[in-house]
């Protein structure tokens, strides 16, 4: 049992504020929440929507249609009105609503009740509460708490607005029955925030980035945490500067991270290669959006997998993670940082607009500072050689400022880091570095199998498609007429856990690769790795996220 409330309107009309308030209070009440954002690349006007899906069990994706549409503009009603399911409710911020919608003039009510246009979002939230049959007083409590530091007046005005909104829906009160609170964890978090928080607690000390949607959310989160965790946050002049700052900072001894999107990542490719040869543990969040070039800057997609796997000239080891859930965003950020430091090589976190903005309940996040192990050699001194040749390929790593002199070079170098054109030494160093790739492969995360053991259909996916695929599996299996299905999700896309993948891929007859791109990039990778011959494809590259329905229909 779940319902979706879609708040829609122009940028600047309060779509985001209303949605955030609604999601926040519902989380606090113990409802399972999944909020998704759809917006245009503009600051005012256009059509944005914010979906708050509520349920009695964990939710990990959005839906195509909505139960409640709160339209703040006419265009919102025009475009999205058809997406309200039969029996659903459409509210319109105006006195006369076109078509089947009900006019509730949130803005006017806010003006009347509180002499404030901006509180229209509270009015709307009150109205939504009433329509879904929730007790508006619970919303009022939440508002009092939220506005506590803004003074009683502001709080009470908001309370009055909420009540007025609830009242004014009239006959629509209780038109729908919202899911019951089932004690879901009250804290909500987005993917972008989860990455940022995990980075801060894991000890990232320099966040250097250049703003780029949808990577910016993580950068902003790190900025908001900077004072608490002692982080220097610097907006670089461009992405090239950012990646080279990371290289410098990690050389200097602190974990460092950047967030960006495809175009910015493209500019970082040379720096990635630098981290490869210098063996620096830099970490980059690549939040995908549809390309090529500027493409659709505020939409989602999974088109940069193959690019992320090969970006940078020359050959070097890397780890590429692709979290599927908000929780994984946190876990894998920590893991990426730790892996980068253990193996002294770059790690990428491949996410996308959908997951960056996806907001859901999380267990109260552990905010304690618990830095990763930087894996430094503490006994380095005279005669220290930064690139000593070892069996594992990992050389003892020291940082400058101590007893050892630390010499690193982008040229081919000796084991002491000195520039060198010794061809044999070059091979020795190249072999040493590439041995780390083997060790990395041994550590690769096994893909997660979800579904019955005897599934006949398998949805193979990676990254943010976890949620929709998992829901598609559940929906498929709920229907007895359909062949049983399972999901195989890769949260690490490089290196692959070959044995586990082979195992899981061997069973089912029908294998589908679900990917947010046109050329089936992950399927290509599986073929390249000898893991899969042919498979069916379920692809989407229109900029919108997958939903369970989309997948089910394509199966």
């Amino acid at each position, binding site marked *: 049992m779940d319902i979706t409330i879609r708040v829609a309107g*122009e940028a*600047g009309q309060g779509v985001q504020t209303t949605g955030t308030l609604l999601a926040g209070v519902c989380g606090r009440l113990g409802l399972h929440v999944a909020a998704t954002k759809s917006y*245009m*690349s*503009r*600051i*005012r*006007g*256009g*059509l944005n929507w914010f979906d708050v899906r509520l349920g009695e069990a964990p939710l990990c994706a959005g839906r*195509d*249609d909505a139960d409640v549409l709160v339209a703040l*503009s006419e*265009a*919102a009603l*025009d*475009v*999205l009105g058809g*997406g309200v399911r039969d029996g659903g409710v459409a509210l319109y911020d105006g006195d006369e609503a076109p078509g089947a919608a009900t006019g509730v003039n949130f803005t006017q009510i806010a003006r009347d009740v509180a002499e404030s246009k901006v509180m229209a979002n509270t009015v709307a939230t009150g109205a939504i509460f009433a329509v879904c049959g929730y007790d508006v007083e619970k919303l009022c409590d939440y508002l009092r708490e939220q506005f506590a530091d803004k003074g009683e007046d502001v709080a009470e005005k908001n309370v009055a607005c909420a009540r007025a909104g609830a009242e004014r829906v009239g006959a629509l009160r209780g038109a729908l029955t919202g899911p019951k609170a089932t004690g879901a964890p009250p804290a909500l978090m987005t993917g972008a925030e989860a990455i940022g928080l995990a980075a801060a607690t894991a000890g990232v000390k320099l966040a250097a980035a*250049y*703003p*780029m*949607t949808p990577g*910016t959310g993580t*950068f*902003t989160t790190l*900025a*908001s945490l*900077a*004072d608490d965790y002692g982080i220097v*946050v610097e*907006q670089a*002049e*461009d992405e090239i500067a950012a990646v080279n700052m990371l290289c410098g900072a990690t050389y200097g001894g602190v974990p460092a991270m950047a967030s960006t999107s495809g*175009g910015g990542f493209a500019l970082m490719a040379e720096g990635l290669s630098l981290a490869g040869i210098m063996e620096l543990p830099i970490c980059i969040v690549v939040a995908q959006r549809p390309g090529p*070039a*500027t493409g659709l*800057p505020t939409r989602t997609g999974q088109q940069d997998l193959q690019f992320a796997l090969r970006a940078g000239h020359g050959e070097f080891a890397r780890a590429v993670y692709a979290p599927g859930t908000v929780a994984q965003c946190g876990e894998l950020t920590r893991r990426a940082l730790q892996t980068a430091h253990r193996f002294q090589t770059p790690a990428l976190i491949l996410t996308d607009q959908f997951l960056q903005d996806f907001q859901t309940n999380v267990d109260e996040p552990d905010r304690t500072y618990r830095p990763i192990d930087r894996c430094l050699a503490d006994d380095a001194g005279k005669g220290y050689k930064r690139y000593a040749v070892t069996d594992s390929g990992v050389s003892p790593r020291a940082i400058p400022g101590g007893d050892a002199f630390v010499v690193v070079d982008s040229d081919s170098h000796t084991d002491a880091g000195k520039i060198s054109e010794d061809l044999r030494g070059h091979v020795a160093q190249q072999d040493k570095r590439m041995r780390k790739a083997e060790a990395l492969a041994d550590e690769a995360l096994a893909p997660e199998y979800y579904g019955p053991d005897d599934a006949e259909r398998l949805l193979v996916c990676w990254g943010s498609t976890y949620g929709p695929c998992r829901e598609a599996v559940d929906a498929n299996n709920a229907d007895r007429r359909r062949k049983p299905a399972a999901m195989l999700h890769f949260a690490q896309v490089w290196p692959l856990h070959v044995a586990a993948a082979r195992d899981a891929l061997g069973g089912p007859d029908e294998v589908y690769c679900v990917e947010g791109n046109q050329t089936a990039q992950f399927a290509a990778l599986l073929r390249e790795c000898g893991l899969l011959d042919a498979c069916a494809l379920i692809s989407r590259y*229109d900029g*919108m996220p997958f*939903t369970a*329905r*989309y997948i089910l229909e394509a199966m």
Partner: protein
Amino acid sequence: MLYDVAQADTSPAWCPGCGNFGILKAFDAVVEDNAINTRTLVLVSGIGQAAKLPHYPDKPVNVFNGLHGRALPAATGIKLANHDLTVVVTSGDGDMYGEGGNHFIHAARRNIGVKAFVHNNQVYGLTKGQASPTSEAGFTTKIQTHGVTSERFNPLALAICEDVSFVARSFSGDREHLKAMMSAALQYEGFCLLDILQPCVTFNRLNTAKWYKDRVKPVGDAHDPTDRAAALELAFTWGDEIPVGVIYTSERPSFESQQPALEARTLVGSFDR
């Protein structure tokens, strides 16, 4: 289910009250008043709110809306391919001075015959309000939570130091002045920098229209734009008074006028020989 959002994709994509409108209107008027042949006019931009301008003029024009920060090299390529075209770059401060800073230096050094109209709103608009290279010290944002500490980038000074053909400043709120500056820039052969103060009503609450209006002051007739020291002095003047007008001009020949391959005809004109 793919919603048909096209109808909500209204144009221009700017906020009501944005200074960009003033720039667009001035531009339209300049095209109209000077009877500019739009067939040989190319508007080039990068990415940002300002960078959308090429899509919005009244009259149809040729448009190259390229990558963030890369308008100048693209414009350089266009001008070299066909130097009979009038090539105008119209883009933001982040675009031109941040991501595009290196191209700014070197376009100035070349003195390539491209006119750069920079919508300088002292902020990153499209990405929602981070500081730009021209943000004031102390300007706070969600990234610069303790305020900007870096020195404001001084594009005028750099352009003067590299001896470009034309350096001017104007204000989006003064249509006539802006038109005059745009028209003047279009007269020069080499690189022209027109830095346009432009209020961003959404993200820049410091440098508002009023803030600019209270400060802009046309350079007097006494100013000799060929006097580099005087021009630099004006370029450094920023505070209670902000000079607007033609700050600097130079006789240095344009890049393209010194290319042997372009003496007889344009590159595109010589393709079929």
